[in-house]
């Protein structure tokens, strides 16, 4: 059974992470996002999150577009075909789940906000997702109970954010010419097709044709960094 020290010890950090993730979700939903929920090992958790957002338990709250990725489906292939830039991908999984790792690293190329909920002494590497909401327990049933609390609170707090429309406006466009974020320093992209020294890649801004002669020949599905029309590294 859940030890109190575990449940309450996580509460402070989890609460801060939940607050930030909720505001991000509210901003994305306000801008038209769909939330894609996946949990390869615990599909019932993904279903629960999706039904929570689509069919609110409190009458009068907005129904929000949330979908479960079918548990038997290829997660990367399904999401690649389905997500639009600005969408949300939320997963519940262990830190070493290869399907989830492969999905999350594509987030920047697809232009989606990623949320990773999980448990255990091992956390995802820094930067593995935009939001990591983690509890330390390695006891599966403790973790399962805490997950239910976490996604219930995620829903509750997201709806609180809707009461603050001023905070849900998109971030102002950056116009600073030397801004690293907006410059063409190295934008993540996913290779769609390869044609000799050129490739068509997917970025949050759409598809573009780039030069891949500076890197080893990439394959469709590979991630590359694009700078000034050239792929400069692959991962």
């Amino acid at each position, binding site marked *: 059974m859940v030890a109190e020290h575990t449940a309450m010890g996580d509460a402070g950090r989890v609460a801060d992470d939940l607050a930030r993730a909720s505001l991000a979700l509210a901003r994305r939903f306000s801008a038209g996002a769909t939330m894609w929920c996946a949990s390869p090992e615990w599909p019932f958790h993904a279903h629960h999150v999706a039904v929570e957002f689509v069919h609110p*338990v409190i009458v009068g709250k907005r129904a929000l577009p949330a979908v479960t990725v079918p548990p038997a489906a290829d997660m990367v292939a399904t999401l690649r075909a389905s997500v639009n830039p600005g969408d949300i991908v939320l997963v519940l999984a262990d830190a070493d789940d290869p399907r989830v790792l492969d999905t999350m690293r594509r987030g920047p190329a697809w232009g989606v906000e990623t949320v990773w909920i999980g448990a255990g002494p091992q956390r995802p590497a820094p930067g593995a997702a935009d939001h990591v909401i983690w509890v330390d327990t390695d006891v599966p049933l403790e973790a399962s109970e805490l997950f239910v609390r976490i996604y219930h609170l995620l829903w509750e707090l997201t709806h609180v954010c809707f009461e603050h429309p*001023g905070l849900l406006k998109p971030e102002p466009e950056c116009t600073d010419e030397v801004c690293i974020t907006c410059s063409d320093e190295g934008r993540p992209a996913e290779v769609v097709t390869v044609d000799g020294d050129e490739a068509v890649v997917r970025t949050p801004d759409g598809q573009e044709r780039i030069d891949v002669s500076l890197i080893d020949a990439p394959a469709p599905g590979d991630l590359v960094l694009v700078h000034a029309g050239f792929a400069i590294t692959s991962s």
Partner: protein
Amino acid sequence: MPETTDFLYPFIEGDETDSEELLEDLARSAQGKWRQSWKLREATLSQHEGQLQATAAAMAERFAAGGRLFTFGNGGSATDAEAVAHLYTQPPAGPAGGPASRALPARSLAEDQAVMTALGNDVGFELVFSRQLIAHGRPHDIAMGFSTSGNSDNLMRAFAEASKQGMLTVGIAGTDGGRMAAEGSPVEQCFVVRSDSVHRIQESQAALNHALWAAVQAVLPAA
């Protein structure tokens, strides 16, 4: 959200720009609810301690006699039904060196979309679970339904059918237990999480489900 915190936000009309105050308030609210959920969980488990043991003993008897567990619920409770079936059939590995848990036959009646839509479309949604029990049920089986209100019509129909067949009926309800806990209900063992919040109810129901599973494992005769 029941709390009215509007007065804290003078910029509610849409020109609010600093999110730090909101983030702090959200985190505080989350911590409070987390604590509230924890307290309800503890109270729920201690109120139902004796009933958990009695129900586990009855369930273990059914399993030992070849019975199967059928779970059902609607919406979030359907996902609880799925989680419980998953737990019984694919129990987690315990601590290293400890005894392994036994896998037990269990199935969620809400999981097969072909069956659910066929029954919902052809005979009505109130019969989606009871019709499956007519097809599958045997006297040694166990019917376990989840509802936060305790009032779902399709659950009551399923419990009535299960009871008619001699199955053990277990209800995991909330609020005041509703029809599931009422006089004359076909639910033999009804657990009620006393709260008005659907979310807090489901969180404590998860704890009850886990405690009941652990108690069943503890009293099962050796394989």
